[in-house]
């Protein structure tokens, strides 16, 4: 698997660390009710198909949202968070 780091270009998967679904970007309000925090922290879809998840490029420190297909393994996009 290869990911195109927006900062460094296409690199081998082993240079990256996986975090989880991009839903992790949608942090609830600090005072949001517990079920909302529970959903944010623990409840994840497991799609057969297009998914967006968070990868860290160890080499440059960039966090990246990778859009990929869990069926074909195609990497469709890689966008920097910041």
């Amino acid at each position: 698997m290869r990911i195109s780091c927006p900062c460094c270009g296409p690199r081998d998967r082993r240079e990256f660390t996986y975090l989880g679904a991009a839903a992790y970007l949608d942090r609830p309000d600090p005072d949001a009710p517990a079920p909302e925090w529970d959903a944010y922290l623990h409840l994840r879809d497991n799609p057969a198909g297009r998914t967006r998840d968070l990868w860290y490029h160890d080499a440059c420190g960039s966090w990246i949202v990778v859009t990929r297909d869990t069926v074909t393994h195609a990497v469709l996009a890689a966008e920097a968070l910041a």
Partner: protein
Amino acid sequence: MTQSHRIPGKGLIDRSRPVRFSFDGRPYEGFAGDTLASALLANGVRLMARSFKYHRPRGVLTAGPEEPNALVEVFEGEQKTPNMRATVQEVFTGLRAQSQNRWPSLRHDLMAVNDRFARFLAAGFYYKTFMWPAAFWERVYEPAIRRAAGLGALSGQPDEGRYEQAFAFCDLLVIGAGPAGLMAALSAGRAGADVILAEADARMGGRLLADQPTVADRPGPDWASQVLGELAAMPNVRLMPRTTVTGAYDGGTWGALERVGLHLADPGALPRECFWRIVARRAILAAGALERPIAHPDNDRPGVMLVSAVQSYVARHGIDPGRVVVFGNNDSALQAARVLTAQGVRIAGYVDPREDVAVVEDFPVYPGAAVTGTRGRLGLRDVAVRHKGGVSLIEAETLALSGGWNPTLHLACHLGGRPDWDAGLAAFVPRAGMVPSMTVAGAARGQFSTAACLADGLAAAKAALSDLGLKPGTDTAPAAEDRPYTIAPFWAVDAGGRAWLDFANDVTTKDVQLSAQEGFSAVEHMKRYTTQGMAPDQGKTSNVTALAVLAEATGQGIAQTGTTTFRPPFMPVSIGAMGAGGRGMGFAPRRLATSDGQSRDMGAPMIEAGLWYRPSYFPRANEVTWRQSCDREVTMVRSSVAVCDVSTLGKIDVQGPDAERFLDFLYTNAMASLKPGRTRYGLMLREDGHVMDDGTCARLGQDHFVITTTTAAAGQVMRHMDFVQQAFCANWAVRFASVTEHWAQFAVAGPKARELVNKILQTPVDERNFPFMACGPACILGVQGRLFRISFSGELGYELAVPARYGADLFARLVREAEGMGGGAYGMEALNVLRIEKGFITHAEIHGRVTAFDIGMAGMISARKDCIGKAASRRPGLTGAEREQLVGLMPIEPQAAISAGAHLYDKDAPATREHNQGYVTSVGYSPTLQSWLGLGFLRNGRARHGEIVRLVDGLRGIKVACRVVHPVFHDPEGGKLRG
């Protein structure tokens, strides 16, 4: 014996370069260009192996890497390598090869008795026989089976051989250098693409070398040589012979194994093998096709080969196969008989089950016929042919089989794609797009004439070039042999007796039929029940025929039966090659502190902390055990002064107007309120409310902080900070960088710590101008450094930081001064005891499942601000009396050793899981308190101080009664710390 079976003047071998090698201790001679198999055949040696289960005598079936029979051991000593294919291993002077899986010798193998009991050893034998009694499995059955099983033997020594791994990148990877691959590489190379042409064989050319069809009015090998000459001259083309592409992976990544030194008498500094990871924008699979045998009774005798193998041995190696009977069901077999005849080989009969085969040839033709048996104890003597006129015995040294061709589509299926069944070809063929960046060309997709392969290779190259944005040239494919290929499916001869499918694993047609009969009729079940295709060759010559036999037994068609799953690697890859460079110190990078040299000079054993190496303790002349050194070092800190390298802690420099706001968001406690020149302990949570790490946060200026992390979590914390910043506060004016390697930092601890640092500092410190938790710049031995008044030991302590290049000098000076004051250096063991005495936590305690509440720090979660993990830390279940909470443990008998990992139980409760009350995370012997001390987590522990619990370590057999105490054993008021 001197190569009695060579045809004078024939073959692509170099007769001017004889090589001497041995097989089973007997010396032989061959020529450069020979494989072990061809060189043995040249010497009339047909018996090369014994089969796996029945120990039947076997010769070579193929002339390539798909060989199921002729597996041998090569090399000696620790490099002894089993299961090398004799059809791949090239001969060189000094090569010593041994047959395997026989005793006492290849010709007289006593294990061949298995063959007599074959009817008891049919499919599923092990599953049915070695079931009961259950207790026998480990002690009786498994050892006995293991002794009898296994092909070849390893040396049992570590493999010290050289291996390498490497990366390569290209526009176009062409896999296979037959007519399609050569044409594709030529066209792409001429158009300017970066091309890698990988070919498993030592010599490129594929079937052009063996079949020698006419190409561009020249013999095939000549055309191949000319193309290779042109490719070799192109700077944008890399030719990789002896390189097997072993796997297709996502994103255009390919694994490949190159045999670098295995064919050389003196490889010098070359590795045995190199494992390549090739990243290619496009790929063309031109791996050709593999011929398959026909299952007929006793089709496994030495002398029985594939038609393509006979052609290869004749044309490439000048081997005289003797009298040959050809048994085929397709036009390529018939054409091969003609070509062999033209080359002077005597075809004793052409046997074809098809009724409509013309009989007008230069050799006897038997249409509508089949081979029903063979004879010859250790090598073929005659062949029984059932034909319209009855059964004839034909004397022959070689029986050449062809049941048709299977496109070599394995790589196309590695990403999960399933091939299609092509009834016309009676073979599976790849579908388009199975591997996104790859097209399949030539025989690998069922194009079987030379002309079709050339045209297909060219078309694939043009398509790839256009995908790559390169302009294809005006190349056209040269004129070449273009015979049609027809085949009548014919898999097995029904004539009683055993007909072999999988030669390597001794699977017969009856085994497959039995499997279907006993209910294992799905293809994946049949495979496991019979072991069909599970040997080193992975059934390359046998799987499709076995499927056909299964399909017949179940009454389903082959298309419905389907194939088993194709997985990498395509060919066996030695672990040594895949793990090249990862042995010993190559396993992981080493991070060495600036004091490393001096620590080792002082005799300190080093222990690993992540990638770092840190001194365990510093032994002195009279000390015999590590405990003596550790006790002394602890006592030095408590009574005088000692020095410890703490540079391995993560150090992150945080700057900017929003730095304080950012740190407030990261840490549970407030950092914005920290004054410049002050340091504060800080706790970080994960967003799920559990503790991530702890450390110190020093404010060097209004917009400038340096924070520390634990050694173990430095990488994780940096990643976390990057995430928080990029995800949630990207527009804040804050930047940070790891400066762990830039600063060497040393702790000076003990009642005399101030006295010592004042010998080093340009400006002396006192309690007033540099109180507890102060920080700031300092001139240290004339160098601009930093000074921190922090302590991880509970004593008066300072940490001195200097740019790393001054670290070694500073450490040496500090140790010298400390020694002059009755102290010295201390290592990790003492550091650990010191922090346990003070109840300071490390990642032994904050192991990922504990909360701030558990470690008694719930109060550090500021109520006045948000922080990562705050919301979740309040959720039910993460606080309360049911939580296991940090406690101190002191054995009632102070000298009774206790252990980390032990579990805690009520005083009178049995030591069983349901009575578990907690566990021990850290222990150490405290010379200060003259007792063993432990830290651990105990259910509702903070309410149980004073209680006696039972500590039980089932692994080490330790049972000790302990008193539950406050986790700060030493100086709980902190008076010493504050000096």
